[in-house]
């Protein structure tokens, strides 16, 4: 279970500081996968980073009673000058893999299917290759909750199918909190939804309601 209480977040910059997230109160039960929807810049990734412990809230608390992954996605997570293999090795080591490191490397290499590029520096990767590696890497560890920040957005068709498949096989043991703009995948993998608007979050027990409200909102704005 992940509980978020009165969470506020702002970033300081030269032009003052606006609240990105305002008074978020959420309880995410075990085993429920949640899709986060909202416009660009509405704080989706920030919320995910805070849940993942990469960033800390300006005010409020977050309680994690589960093993939570790092936010899997395009931004961050890899050191560009290191090769794919070295990055995987590094992450396996900080997660205390010990002797399993070689096994984890082999599995990630198999899953990512990026061939000889696995031994090239990550900065030379295309975004698709990065996301393959990131995804394969996160699946090599057993988490209760996986955080995905558009992790599958840039993958090709085969990879998307593979990733979706891999997650479906984990339902029951693990859940997912994902930010995505592809609604098909959200509907496919998530049960509940969170809509972020103006820094505030609304919980929907059904992801379809969240997406529906989000559509109404954007349509109204356009009209």
């Amino acid at each position, binding site marked *: 279970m992940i509980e978020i209480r009165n969470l506020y977040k702002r*970033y300081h910059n030269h032009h003052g500081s606006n609240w990105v997230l305002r008074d978020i109160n959420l309880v995410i039960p075990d085993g429920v996968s949640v899709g986060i929807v909202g416009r660009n810049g509405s704080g989706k990734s920030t919320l995910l980073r805070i849940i*993942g*412990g*990469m*960033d*800390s809230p300006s005010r409020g608390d977050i309680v994690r009673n589960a*093993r939570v992954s*790092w*936010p899997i996605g395009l931004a*961050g*997570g*890899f*050191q*560009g*000058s*290191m090769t794919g293999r*070295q990055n995987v*090795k*590094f*992450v*396996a*080591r*900080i*997660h*205390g*893999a010990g002797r*399993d490191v070689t*096994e*984890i490397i082999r*599995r990630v290499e198999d*899953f990512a299917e990026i061939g000889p590029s696995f031994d090239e520096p990550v900065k030379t990767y295309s975004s698709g290759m990065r996301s393959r590696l990131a995804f*394969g890497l996160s*699946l*090599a*560890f*057993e*988490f209760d909750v996986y955080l995905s920040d558009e992790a599958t957005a840039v993958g090709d068709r085969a990879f998307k199918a593979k990733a979706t*498949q*891999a*997650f479906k*096989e*984990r339902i029951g043991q693990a859940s997912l909190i994902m930010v995505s703009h592809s609604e098909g995948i959200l509907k496919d993998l998530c049960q509940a939804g969170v809509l972020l608007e103006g820094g505030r979050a609304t919980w929907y027990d059904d992801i379809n309601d969240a997406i529906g409200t989000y559509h109404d909102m954007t349509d109204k704005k356009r009209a």
Partner: protein
Amino acid sequence: MANELTAKTRNSRSPLRVTWSVWHALFMREAISRTMADRMAWFWMLFEPIALIAVMIAVRTFIMGGRQIAGADFVPWMIVGLLGFMLFRENMMRAIGAVDANKGLFAYRQVKPIDPVLVRCFLEGMLKTLVFLVFIAIGSLLGIDLIPDHPLGVMFDWLSLWALGWGAGLTLSVASSLIPEIGRVVRIASLPLLIISGVILPLNYLPHSIQQYLLWNPIPHGLESMRLSFFDGYRALPGIDMTYLWLWALSLLALGLILHLRFAQRLKAQ
């Protein structure tokens, strides 16, 4: 297939174990990028101080003519001072870059900004110690008197300079990440620091009134003390005091740790 992909992760590890895993992982990463990334990395590690020493000897011969240093041969005197100074400077400089160079890895909440700084300083000290030992070995083979008269004293002075560099690195790694200009100023200041620390030119020749101010700088305390441990008959700068150096080192270490605690989140978020 998913289960096949799963590897065991310990359910909950103690904070100490997590930190230890992070240090181990970072150490392996830093050690590889430091020694293997560049084809010539090992060569430069030795050649850089050799070239620097050669240049300094040329400069000194040009400026000072034949004046001697009381109680020590010039070349070993210079090697000891320069390697001691480089131990301090490299620790400080590498630490400044450490936070920035590992930014991509802060995505994992186990990694704190202080970890790469500590690991880098440790690695740098080990490498510099190795280089120093190689210098002593090669120098002795070449007939340069580089065998310390008081090895234990040298070790203590070496550790003191390391601690000083470590403290400066910890403090400046935060300061320069928050205010990038500080990193630039430190880089500019490193050459004058080399001169006023008495690495190339002995401070003994300066008038007492100037010496007093130069002794505010903790580095010459360590360098002169190390030379004294190396060469029994060496006439060191009067007024050197290792307690003063350790006061600086411990204060900087404490300040650095406090700054890292205070600004950990901001360093991560940048």
